[in-house]
């Protein structure tokens, strides 16, 4: 009796496996500092994509639908780079992740990139701007070809975006304040990622008919910039060009408001990209403007639905790290096109892809870096106006609102 049963059971199981009815999930490790807002957004964007894909049946791999499984990997990279490399090692060896995505702090992502490349795992970067990450691909394609940057654009391209917006802000000052040569104070935290931007600003602003009245560079962990702002006030600056990612972003918004500095703050201010900025500045961060990624504007047809769904689910807006949503969809497209999860087969497809995501329209150069284009990968600029983060640039994108000068 047992022998009679054994054959059909084995045959049935064989059929099940061969048809992929009982197929494995596609495991994607989401790497980020999960106790921090960057990691929270990495995870939230990935959850959105996972639920969307799984609700539709999963990713079709050679005609077999496979569910997406995301694995939360806390890299703790803001506090410790070694923690990050341990975390990615764990994701690969213990959690058996098929794909890796995320990362935020460039130093940590550079270290994690090495581990991922050792294991020949496809790693989609969603957070670090350091150019070296993609320069590695050019230098040693065979080793680093598994790396792609999904967001943000590299530091040099961030500069192109920021100067494009700065030009628009300068023009508004010329019109509104009747000042032919607006005065700009550069306020940048002293960090590796700001150095190229500071030098570029010092060289580019005079060519843009703006006068640089000084450069102030506090420590990246500074929590008080009243002395700097008092000096900036005395310099008569019309624009405070900010390049900050740390707590100073909040303090400068707050203290500019308190000191009633007659200037607009624009630049890169990571803290001002977060919904919590208004509360953190106790409502004094009015008119602070920064580069950003997501808003309810038609950057692509996917942007508004994504931002609305994100806000409804998490009761806050997404930051650029939530582009894990786009990264998972890029993977989905490549997998469905090749019918495989083999990284070596996916790479040529992604290299040629034009991915229309929620954050922008991504295409890649030979170094697997994003090709910069206004309205596609450049991101947007937003300004805090009476408690609301209002998008104002690029003006050609539908849904943009006017930039306001301090009263």
């Amino acid at each position, binding site marked *: 009796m047992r022998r009679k049963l054994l054959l059909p059971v084995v045959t049935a199981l064989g059929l099940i496996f061969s048809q992929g009815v009982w197929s494995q999930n596609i495991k994607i490790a989401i790497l980020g500092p999960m106790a921090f807002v960057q990691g929270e957004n990495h995870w939230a964007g990935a959850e959105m994509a996972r639920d969307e894909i799984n609700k539709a049946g999963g990713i079709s791999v050679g005609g077999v639908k496979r569910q997406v499984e995301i694995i939360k990997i806390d890299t703790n990279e803001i506090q410790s780079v070694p923690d990050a490399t341990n975390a990615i090692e764990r994701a690969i060896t213990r959690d058996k992740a098929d794909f890796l995505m995320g990362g935020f702090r460039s130093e940590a992502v550079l270290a994690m990139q090495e581990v991922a490349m050792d294991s020949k795992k496809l790693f989609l970067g969603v957070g670090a701007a350091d150019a070296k990450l993609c320069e590695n691909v050019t230098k040693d394609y065979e080793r680093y070809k598994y790396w792609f940057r999904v967001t943000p654009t590299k530091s040099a391209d961030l500069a192109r975006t920021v100067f494009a917006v700065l030009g628009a802000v300068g023009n508004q000052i010329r019109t509104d304040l009747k000042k032919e040569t607006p005065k700009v104070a550069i306020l940048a935290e002293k960090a590796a990622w700001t150095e190229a931007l500071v030098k570029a600003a010092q060289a580019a602003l005079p060519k843009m008919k703006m006068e640089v009245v*000084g*450069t102030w560079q506090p420590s*990246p962990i500074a929590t008080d910039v009243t*002395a700097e702002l008092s000096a900036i006030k005395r310099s008569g600056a019309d624009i405070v060009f900010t390049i900050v990612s740390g707590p100073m972003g*909040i303090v400068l918004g707050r203290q500019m408001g308190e000191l009633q500095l007659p200037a607009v703050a624009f630049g890169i201010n990571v803290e001002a990209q977060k919904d919590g900025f208004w509360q953190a500045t*106790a409502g004094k961060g009015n008119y602070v403007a920064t580069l950003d990624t997501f808003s309810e504007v038609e950057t692509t047809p996917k942007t508004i639905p994504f931002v609305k769904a994100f806000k409804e689910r998490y009761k806050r807006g997404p930051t650029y790290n939530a582009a894990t949503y786009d990264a998972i969809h890029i993977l989905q497209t490549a997998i469905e096109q090749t019918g495989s999860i083999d990284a070596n087969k996916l790479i040529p497809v992604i290299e040629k892809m034009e991915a229309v995501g929620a954050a922008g329209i991504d295409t890649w150069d030979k170094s697997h870096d994003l090709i910069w284009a206004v309205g596609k990968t450049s991101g947007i600029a937003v300004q805090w106006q009476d408690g609301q983060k209002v998008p104002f640039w690029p003006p050609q994108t539908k849904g943009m609102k006017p930039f306001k000068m301090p009263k």
Partner: protein
Amino acid sequence: MFQDILVSGLINGGVYALLAIGFSLIFGVARIVNIAHTAFYMLAAYALYGLLVKASMPLLFAIPLSVTAVVALSLVCYKLVIEPVRQHESAVLIATIALALIFQESLLVSFGGSFRGIPNAVEGVVSIIGVRVSYQRLIVLAVVAITLVATWYLLNRTRLGLAIRTAANDQEIANLMGINVSRVAMYTVGISVGLAAIAGVVVAPVFVVDPLMWLSPLVTMLAIVVLGGLGSLKGSLIGAFIIGYVEAITVFAVPSGSYLKGAVALSIMVLVLLIRPEGLFGVVFEEER
């Protein structure tokens, strides 16, 4: 520019003074190098954030409750963690580092890594000799002045102060005179952490609250107490204002080097130590005890 330096240095120096005097006090009395001192300052800022912003408690209740809770916690920590190893200075040092890291990680887990802001007690700005200063900063300055005067009164005009000063001078003699040195040390821990907690609640609305906010003032505070002379309250007070003014001068004199303000302050400390190893008002090491 001179007015800016005058006002900025005064306010920064005042905050540093509150932290440094508390640290110096507990070192002078009990020879406890409390690395967790600025972590208690951070805890007070978070307690205020929790009570004021999250629990919507009125400011007048939230401030004393935050300070009291942190002082109570410090006494528990003293009894459980520090007192058993008090005789071993290196063990105390390591224990207090561990405490600080435990507080940091606990806050990270409870509140996340985001930077938090607390509303000012009083809104508005005033112009002092041409420099705009927020009322909150003036409150900081007033609280610093009142607290320092109260600390001076406590130490010089009360029996507890006499016991603290006696223990600070010589613990064995204090013991022989019937002073319970262990209890005096505990009271001193309370007072010392109380000063840090007051600093935490008054500056929280001016700065940013985050789980790493204890690290930066720790370095500055250590520089101040070494500059002023370990264990010397007068030295800490003067050292705090020296560092406060050095930082302000650096920012105004070298704008593109404003990140160097900490390094310049530390260099001055090193310079003073080269000339006077015991610090400005410290006791020569050989003469200790």
